[in-house]
């Protein structure tokens, strides 16, 4: 589901222009018919295993029950009212958004130079970097998180090293904190950021850099005025990807943050699996989904309305 959602977001960011339908043919032959036929199986699959469960969860979120057996169920907004009046859940939502934003930012700052290097490199080097960037995806996220344990625990490599160097006097709380979750998430989703940015960097006509250089732009000015704005579509879709993946991430926050960092997916899991509050959990998950969609919408809309709107056409 995470992946499906992420793809949706990406479409929103970089709307591919539909090829103009040839009107004359459309009238006679219905050119969409074969395409629809091919789509049928996947549409049925999506409907049965994605749309229906989602609608069912939405339905559940409007049910209020007094007890676990579901007796005395009635339609009401009480789940949502509880959620928006209890500071615990509001705080959890805020922490989730904050961590997702910061993870996107860290991934952007780390990913952009890599993408830039890739875009400028020869085909060989580019293939090598792509391989390096994508290789962590081959390792299970659980294994990777336990790898971070070795590095980030109070007696782990990082703290030991910093203490031995005399830079800190006592171990930092890197694990089981927001910092740990941000480290884990930005690391895990860095490949998505790099690949999104590199795609938009490839699309920049190399002669634009020449044109700006000959007009007197130094390499730095060139980057700020030409390369950076023209790679905005990649930055936006990379950020949207990392943000929405982070918003719905469960494993990394659970392992790297634990009880100290109660992000929404962890809270939802708790409600449904441990407390058996299906209806409240459903409401929580819809609020999470709504927040993600709204943030992404505002973010991309902001860019598309900005002075760089021409870049997104």
């Amino acid at each position: 589901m995470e992946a499906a959602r992420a793809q949706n977001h990406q479409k929103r960011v970089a709307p591919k222009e539909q090829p103009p339908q040839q009107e004359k043919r459309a009238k006679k032959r219905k050119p969409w018919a074969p395409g629809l036929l091919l789509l049928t199986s996947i549409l049925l699959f999506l409907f049965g295993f994605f749309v229906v469960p989602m609608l069912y969860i939405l339905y559940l979120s409007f049910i209020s029950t007094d007890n676990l057996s579901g007796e005395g169920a009635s339609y009401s907004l009480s789940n949502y009212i509880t959620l928006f009046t209890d500071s615990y859940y509001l705080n959890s939502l805020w922490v989730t958004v904050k961590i997702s934003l910061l993870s996107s930012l860290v991934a952007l700052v780390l990913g952009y130079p890599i993408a830039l290097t890739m875009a400028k490199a020869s085909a060989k080097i580019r293939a090598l970097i792509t391989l390096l960037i994508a290789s962590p995806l081959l390792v299970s996220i659980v294994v990777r998180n336990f790898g971070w344990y070795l590095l980030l625990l109070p007696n782990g490599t990082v703290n030991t090293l910093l203490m031995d160097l005399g830079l800190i006097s006592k171990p930092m709380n890197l694990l089981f904190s927001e910092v740990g979750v941000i480290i884990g998430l930005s690391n895990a989703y860095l490949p998505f950021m790099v690949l999104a940015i590199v795609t938009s960097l490839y699309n920049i006509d190399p002669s634009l850099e020449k044109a700006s250089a000959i007009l007197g732009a130094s390499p730095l000015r060139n980057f700020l005025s030409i390369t950076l704005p023209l790679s905005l579509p990649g930055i936006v879709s990379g950020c949207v990807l990392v943000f929405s993946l982070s918003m719905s991430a469960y494993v990394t926050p659970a392992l790297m943050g634990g009880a100290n960092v109660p992000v929404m997916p962890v809270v939802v899991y708790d409600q449904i699996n441990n407390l058996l509050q299906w209806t409240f959990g459903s409401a929580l998950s819809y609020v999470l989904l709504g927040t993600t969609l709204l943030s992404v919408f505002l973010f991309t809309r902001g860019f598309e309305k900005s002075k760089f709107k021409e870049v997104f056409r």
Partner: protein
Amino acid sequence: MTTAISDVEIKGAIKKFGSNIVLNSIDLEVKQGELLTLLGPSGCGKSTTLNLIAGFLEADQGDVFIKGKKVTKVPPYKRDLGMVFQTYSLFPHMTVYDNLNFGLKLRKIAKSEQKKKIDRVLELVKLSGLEQRYPRELSGGQRQRVAIARALVVEPELLLLDEPLSNLDAKLRHELRLEIKRLQKEIGVTTIFVTHDQEEALSLSDRVVVMNAGKIEQISTPTSIYKHPKTEFVFQFIGKSNSFEGMVTSTDQERIMVQAGQEVTSVSWDNVIGENRTFQNGDEVKLYIRPENIHISESQEAVDGYELHPAKITQLNYLGTSWEIDVAFMGKSLQILTNEYRSSWKEGSEVFVGWKPQELKIIRKE
């Protein structure tokens, strides 16, 4: 050109890409205010030469001077040039106005001056009123005009044009070619124009540099390039030509007598192409004649004192202002470009062809 100050000078430039020698010791001077064309087939080194001047490439050996200053190691952004690219290269995220203002801002021109300069240059390229358009909203011809305006607005030391017309259709290309010529004369900026289109080069330039395989074949005015080619390559590259093989039978002070097939013809020493200008009896030579210099007629009556010989039409192509006629002549195919067309002619018609001996060019066969 009375003034002989050179705005650009390239001395002994050698450039290799791997083991491939792209420029093989180029020497070039561009005079102040002239429009110089670098002409040649793709891979001849013309774009590399332009890139050396622009600073996008650095020669392995040799130096580049602009206005007497050595700029061999100076990066492009410090050279104060204007350049127009084949792909327009307008900044897609900026309006026409911002595209033009880009160079002005970098030169820290005052705001009030910026607008004046932009208005003036837009008027020059006939695009006033399109300031707020984005490049996407312009036609190909308009984009290239903006690109030219963007290069000119900064009042550069030199204007470099890298095949600026090759992405446009024939009519626009012609229109813009005339416009570039007009602008260049009006502003007087020293201009280097790279093209593979000989018509473009001949019609635009004060001087043409014909390049081939990393070397300069000839630097001369368009007319002298066409009429007095220095090398066989130049002759063949500029315009079309028919060739015959022959053998020198005798030479004297004025002429070289050549036997070609059954015919013996004489060629003036002025018409010798190439470095090797000595001929001896029995030397194998090639004779060249331009299609437009062949006379074609229905009767065998001699014209201007030269003989006509029978030939047979194999193909007729109408070109609008003239006819391109292929004939079979002495077992060879000849191409003729003429206005003297008779409507009775068709494929297979018997005709007579001939030419003035002074139109024949001669070169020693290597």
